[in-house]
């Protein structure tokens, strides 16, 4: 049964807005309500179509009134901030993530109309450390429990959602653990990271990176909102790349820095509002993380259209490479032609110096 009234939190961000727009375009859904603390951009507003926008803070009990008044039956919680930069510091970020989720869940628990709860979570809950198994399945837990930042918030949020699902067994809860997003339009940690012409990385480390294309992320969210899936699922593209490899494929210049220096570069870049190199992101950039997506393809029933590699290629269309593959190609082919000419010259000189002995004049001995 498709949902009648859907509430989407965090609708002013690209992914939330795209989901609301997609749901609004579905005539079987009666109402789509978008909630965010900041109004969506004019371009986003045009896309949102018949979505009703409510400017509210999920930390405010007002959200309960919205849910009750509209008799919302499906809640998609996406208002989770991954970087302190996006929400004005670590304290407001934690406030929004943890307290916001608690308020939203409290409101949902009170509303008898709610039947489905979809959480946009992250694979960061698995942490990132040297003691990790190479591939995480949904049943595994972090080997080193993340001690702070986005990953810790996400762990807390997931545990609140599980507790909510226990208290309201009639509500179907779906938890989507997304890997890193990438794509031409989405704004994620890695898209900002890869846009820098010179990418500082940790010297002596190379992370395994699994990406998810924005279109696949959107399709999975739509399916989770309208479909019957209950439980936790890892969402990521097929295949992995090494961080250094991704940087090279994008034609970026990698600058490996010793970890202490990287820390100060991180603080500096955070101050200027660039990329966030928090200790947690650093650990991710050191070790990386890969998740098993068997549940996504079988139980959830969605196979991402983009692999990690093709998703990166699609993103690469929007960044102009500093070191273009074609120029590398031309340099190596020029070197190759120089080389073959030198080889020809050398063999000619060699021929002159040591001429090949003439063919031995052997004759078949004829029978008498």
């Amino acid at each position: 049964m498709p949902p009648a009234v859907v509430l989407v939190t965090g609708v002013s961000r690209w992914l939330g807005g795209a989901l609301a727009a997609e749901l609004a375009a579905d005539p079987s859904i009666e109402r789509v309500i978008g909630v965010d603390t900041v109004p969506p951009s004019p371009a986003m507003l045009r896309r949102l179509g018949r979505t009703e926008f409510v400017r509210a803070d999920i930390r405010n009990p007002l959200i309960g009134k919205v849910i009750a008044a509209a008799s919302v039956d499906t809640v998609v919680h996406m208002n989770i901030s991954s970087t302190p930069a996006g929400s004005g510091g670590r304290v407001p970020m934690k406030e929004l993530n943890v307290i916001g989720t608690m308020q939203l869940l409290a409101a949902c628990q009170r509303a008898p109309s709610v039947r489905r709860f979809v959480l946009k979570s992250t694979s960061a809950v698995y942490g990132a450390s040297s003691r990790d198994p190479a591939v995480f399945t949904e049943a595994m837990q972090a080997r080193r429990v993340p001690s702070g930042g986005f990953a810790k918030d996400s762990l807390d949020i997931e545990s609140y959602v599980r507790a909510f699902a226990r208290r309201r067994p009639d509500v179907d809860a779906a938890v989507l653990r997304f890997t890193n997003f990438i794509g031409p339009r989405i704004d994620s940690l890695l898209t900002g990271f890869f846009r820098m012409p010179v990418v500082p990385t940790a010297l002596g480390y190379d992370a395994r990176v699994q990406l998810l294309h924005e279109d696949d992320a959107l399709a999975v969210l739509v399916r989770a909102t309208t479909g019957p899936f209950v439980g936790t699922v890892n969402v990521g593209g097929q295949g992995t790349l090494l961080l250094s490899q991704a940087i090279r494929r994008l034609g970026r210049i990698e600058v490996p820095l010793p970890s202490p220096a990287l820390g100060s570069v991180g603080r500096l870049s955070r101050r200027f509002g660039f990329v966030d190199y928090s200790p947690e992101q650093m650990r991710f950039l050191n070790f990386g993380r890969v998740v098993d997506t068997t549940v996504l393809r079988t139980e959830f029933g969605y196979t991402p259209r983009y692999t990690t590699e093709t998703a990166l290629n699609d993103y690469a269309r929007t960044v102009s490479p500093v070191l273009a593959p074609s120029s590398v190609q031309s340099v190596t082919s020029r070197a190759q032609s120089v080389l073959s000419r030198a080889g020809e010259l050398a063999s000619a000189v060699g021929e002159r110096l040591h001429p090949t002995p003439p063919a031995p004049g052997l004759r078949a001995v004829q029978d008498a």
Partner: protein
Amino acid sequence: MPEARVIPLRPDDDESFVPVAVPAGLEEQLAGGLEFLRRRATGDYETDEFGFDPDLTDHVLLPLLRPLFQKWFRVETQGLENVPDVGGALVVANHSGTLPADALMTMVALRDEHPAQRRLRLLGADLVFDLPFLGTMSRKMGTTLACNEDAERLLTEGEVVGVFPEGFKGIGKPFRERYTLQRFGRGGFVTAALRTGKPIIPCAIVGAEEIYPMIGNAKTAARLLGLPYFPITPTFPLLGPLGLLPLPSKWLIAFGEPIETASYGPAAAEDPMLVFNLTDQVRETIQHSLYQLLLQRKSVFS
């Protein structure tokens, strides 16, 4: 005696005698190297979820190890037919030599001398992955963390997995205990084989014990550096970096007959008695074949 050559039967054919083409070794190698550099600069190569980089392994790491394998240790392999051409298998070997050269040489042996050029995917201690450079390089070489999840995933994917259950107890043991096997961990490798139904191939390595004969262990230095042991050999740290040069001992690597595990069924992994028995069986087999190989070897260096 001169080399045999084709003798033209008709005199007219004499003109068309073509000299044997000299292999353009250097030039081709340089061109191949340029192509390799292009691939590396543009990221145009494959890596897997374990961080394995076959391109780098085949073109840089294995060529670096090959002289050590062929010229320095003059490794002889036996029983390669016991390693299957396709499908997963768990190679279990003794560990020794202060630095894990035995793991690397076994990898070269299977890649270069096995008819199917199998890649050995090693399982490494977590210390390896804690260290910068070494951890990354190990992953690029196909090594992953020694944990059941990774071992089972690799075996299910049909890879040959190499494991050294003695761990630091084996590699860091004093020289006087050479060729005596230490305790075989907690038998995790047997459960991995049982769960996936892949055969266990016992592997005995002779020669690695003598590359860095460890006559002492500087425990304080080890504790300060966070290492499980700090070796003192006749040349290290006395001769400084020169002491890192391994002694050119003669190596023998023997792959024994596979111990089949599929018939027990995956549920057998939950039976600790069976796991202990299989662990002991593998250990005994390796110890026995170590003694046999030692008898075959004329002396340590020949």
